[in-house]
Structures are given as C-alpha cells and as structure tokens.
C-alpha cells in the first residue's frame, strides 16, 4: 500500500496567519502524523502546539504519551518563552502555561506467522479528532463520537508541569488498515462540522475529496459564512491508503 498525506489549514476569520495557533506535522517515512490546537486563552500556545506535533512525528512522544517525554518539551517551552524579558501581563499569562489539544496517529506493521498487516494506533487529548473511513462509511470516530461532545473547556496538554493532569485522561485507540482507507486528523471546528453533517445523513468526506489548499480555504470560508462551522483556526490532515 502507498500512503499519500496532505495537510490543509486556515486561520480564524479576522485573524492573520501569524495568529494561527493550530499545528500539523506529517512524517510519511516514519508513518507518523499529528495535529494540535493551541488554546486561544493561553499565550505561547502556538509554539506549544508546534512542539507537540513535531515531537510526535519525530518519535519523541509515544503512544501513550508519558510524563517523562513531556518534561523536555516543557523545559524547552520555558526557554523559548523567557528568551526576552516579558511585560507584566505576558509574564503573568505565561506562568499559567500554554495548552493544546492534540491527536497523533501512527501506522505500524503487525507480523503474524503467515502475513504482515498494517495497523494504526492513536492518542488524543481534548477535542482534536481522528476519523477513519472505509467504503464511504466512518469506521472510527476518535476520541469524540458526536457533535454534541464539543465544548469550550476540553482537557488539554499543558506546557507547565501542573498542567499535566490531562495525560491520565488521554484517550487511545487502534485497529487494522485496509487498502482504500482514508484517515482524517482534524482540529475541533472542522471535526464538529464533520460529525454534525454525518449526523444529518450527509457525507462530509465527499466535500474533502480532491481539495487543494485554495479550494479548501474557499470551502471553509463558505461554511463559516453559512454558520455551519465555528469561526476558529482550522487544520486538517488527510491520509489516503492507495492499493
């Protein structure tokens, strides 16, 4: 099987690209993929989201993520944040830490005596989601399964040690992969829209077929204008398994 992966992204409407706080990373060679969503109400969360996805695709974060793996990333975050003296408000804000939702996906071969099968496993914190599609059906919706499960206070990964509580609440999933399967990693706004459309009996994945960066941006812009999608940073990684 051949893997083709593409990422798409768009900042919140009214925000500049510099204000975009999601992150995605693709390492086709290592069969690792991730998206993260830095929380709007924390500062330096874009850096934190980027650190998480890069560390995951480099193999510095495992499934499940353990505290010891997060420690070096948190120290690095502190160093970056305090490179320059901060004004009073930035100092106060940084002491609370940055937070991000995260979903990381890894493919691996499971060997038995007779054959080798491709499998996937994933870990998620908060409301970034993974969907696996086969023959025009969702076969996995992880970690959230319905559009009503999204709220504004998800359990996220923190850049300060006392924000680590959510490691215990991180979800894990896995299963087999077949030729023709499609995986999506999404941050919350587009994931919520995706599930809502599915619940209405529609096939939102059809709209995500054959997109390029520019048509993806048009699609999201229209969905926001029609109030079908919350105005938030949007990030999507699409992974196709081709026979």
């Amino acid at each position: 099987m051949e893997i083709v992966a593409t990422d798409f992204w768009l900042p919140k409407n009214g925000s500049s690209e510099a204000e975009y706080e999601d992150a995605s990373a693709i390492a086709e060679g290592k069969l690792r993929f991730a998206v993260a969503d830095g929380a709007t109400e924390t500062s330096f969360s874009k850096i934190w989201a980027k650190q998480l996805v890069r560390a995951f695709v480099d193999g510095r974060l495992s499934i499940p993520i353990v505290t010891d793996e997060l420690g070096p990333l948190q120290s690095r975050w502190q160093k970056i944040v305090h490179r320059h003296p901060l004004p009073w408000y930035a100092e106060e804000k940084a002491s609370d830490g940055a937070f991000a939702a995260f979903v990381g996906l890894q493919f691996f071969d499971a060997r038995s005596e007779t054959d080798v099968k491709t499998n996937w496993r994933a870990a998620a914190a908060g409301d970034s989601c993974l969907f696996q599609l086969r023959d025009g059906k969702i076969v996995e919706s992880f970690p959230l399964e319905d559009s009503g499960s999204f709220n504004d206070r998800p359990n996220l990964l923190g850049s300060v040690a006392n924000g680590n509580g959510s490691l215990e609440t991180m979800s894990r999933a896995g299963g087999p992969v077949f030729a023709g399967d499609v995986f999506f990693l999404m941050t919350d706004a587009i994931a919520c829209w995706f599930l809502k459309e599915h619940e209405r009996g529609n096939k939102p994945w059809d709209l995500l077929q054959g997109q390029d960066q520019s048509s993806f941006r048009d699609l999201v812009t229209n969905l926001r204008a029609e109030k079908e999608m919350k105005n938030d940073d949007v990030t999507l990684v699409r992974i196709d398994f081709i026979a």
Partner: protein
Amino acid sequence: MADVFGGGEGNQKKADGAADAINRMLQNLVIKCAKEEGIRDYFHVGVIGYGAQVGPAFSGALAGQQMVPISQVGNSPARVEQRNKKVSDGAGGLVDQPVRFPIWFEPVANGGTPMGQALGQAKSIVENWLTQHPDCFPPIVINITDGEATDGDPTVAAAEIRRLKSSDGEVLVFNCHLSSQRASTIEYPGNGDGLPDKFAQQLFQMSSTLPEHMRAIASQSGMSVNEGSRGFVFNADLVALIKFLDIGTRPSALR
C-alpha cells in the same frame, strides 16, 4: 464604573477595596487578552469614577480618556506595585510569591455617591458605542460600589441601560456591592431573599440575568448558578466574571 469615594466610617479602607476591585478586574481583563505578540483588542474599556465628581477615572497616561482599547490599558498603567501572591509550596503549604500589580485607578475617600448620575453617563457612552458598533458583543456596565446612592433611585437609570441593545443582544448591567457589614459573600444569586439589606436588594434588582453562555462557563467552572442567576455579587470580587467572557477555547485546567 466604580464608586471611588465611599462615605461615613472607614472611608479609606472601603475606597481601597473598591480601587483594588477595579484594578484587579482590569488586570484580569488584560491578561485574558494577552498573547505572545502583545494584547489583542477584544475589548474596549471605560472607567467612570463617582463621588465628589463624576467622570473618566483612569490615572496616569490614560487620565481623562473615556473609552480605551484593552491593549492601551495593559501598556499604560499609572504605576506597577510589587505585591505578594500566595502560591502552593508543593508540600501542602502556601508561600508568598512577588507579583507585579498594575494600578490604573487610585482610591480617593470623599463624600457622596451620585450613582444615578454615573449610570446616566455610562448610558450615554454605551449609546454612542452602539451607534458606532451596532453588531458588537453587547456592552457590559459593571457598577462597583460601597455605599447607597445619594442622588435618588438608581434603578431607573439601570433599567434604561438594560433596554439598550446591539444586534447580538441586550446591554448587561452587573453590580458589585462591597459592604462594611460583616456579612458572608454572596455570588450570582437567583433571588434577593438572602441579601442583608434593602440596598443590596436594590442592586440585585438592577442587575441583568446572566446570559446562557455565561451561565454555561460558570457551571463548567464549578460555580452554582441557575437560570435566574443575576450578575450581582455581595462582598466578593467580580474577577470570576472576566472568566465568563467568551473569547475562545479555555483549558479546563486553567484557573
């Protein structure tokens, strides 16, 4: 909006309490909007002081200004004091940690509580704002006071403000009553039954019901609120209220 001056005994102490309350509120609002690149202008803020005079009450560089973008507020405190904050020592105890405490608003003890006049001024500022920003998030008028109005019934002026609206909803009026009575704290009550005096009940009546999105955030933060809960606190600060202002994803682990 804040009653800076107070009246009667313990003036200075009560005035300090009101000034601290407003400074803490501004500080929290700034921090809420702070990002690595600076402060995002999610809000504009005006502060009206009322006592011997009624008018704009920022000190320092912002003196005399009516409405100021939150980035300017954050970058222009009159001064920054060093204070101590109690933080966990990691072993079950608390230790003092020095923090910078910005001051925009100075306490001044002086007679009179012309609340009606102050609310009237707030109303005209809000009306003007709504003309310029008809689709904005509905403005919030926060009245922090330690005394009873000395210029007549303030409920009329409060009702007039509550009748104003943007295309997004009605203007909200919240009240914070700092009393010298040794009465326990009351936050966001659904009725006026447990309130200690007529004046507290009047401020409760003047307060808007918390809108649904604020109630949702309050509940998620573990606060006890119901459908009738109003934006009123007695001998408590309104810092929690800042958390109810929705500007985006807020981690559940964050205080």
